[in-house]
């Protein structure tokens, strides 16, 4: 649950935005790798993330290749 407390110091709220973005990026990196390792296709991962196949491929293909993760073409 996200607590939108109006009395919160804006410094804490802004720092939360930074921490959430970084966490979201790291969770995405790790979960995309897991899904593809489990045999998901790029298309299915894209659907799950609500983005295009091109977008998810562009963002993750190089990193996953360097990690030695084999990915399925479709």
């Amino acid at each position, binding site marked *: *649950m*996200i*607590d*939108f407390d109006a009395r*919160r110091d804006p*410094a*804490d*709220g*802004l*720092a*939360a935005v*930074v*921490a*959430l973005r*970084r*966490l979201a*990026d*790291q*969770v995405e*990196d*790790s979960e995309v*790798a897991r899904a593809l390792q489990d045999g998901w296709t790029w298309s299915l991962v894209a659907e799950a993330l609500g983005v295009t196949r091109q977008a998810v491929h562009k963002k993750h293909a*190089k*990193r996953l290749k*360097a*990690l030695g993760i084999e990915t399925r073409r479709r």
Partner: protein
Amino acid sequence: MFERFSHDAREVVKGAEAEARELGSPAIEAEHLLLALADRVAALPAAGLDHDGVLAALDAERDRSLAAVGVSASGFEPSPLPTKPKFATSAKSALELALREALARGDKRILPGHVLLGVLRPQAGTVPRALQQAGVDRDELRARTEAELDS
């Protein structure tokens, strides 16, 4: 922009890249410079911020920031980063500020101490919050770093 950087200051920049990679961060941020500086500027361990101390302060800052919106990241381990992290604005800005600090002091070479002064300049963001979390006074740390550069 690295022409004026001393060998040790360049090592800090390389070290920051290694720190970002180690932490699974796709971007090199000011806090990764701070981690790389922990073993190279005596003022940091003197303030209780050796490498582990900085890591603990950054963890505490992240947990506190996430807790402000009711989120906990406990148990999440980022996956390793095999690709080259890019310099983020916070790190670029710290390096530019390091250059400015050196010019303002009339120092020809940029040493790790100047990089630390650059990292310590911003008033808001992850680094000042982490320092606050660790009970470290930013101005005092700056003064100690200046003194170290003077000696």
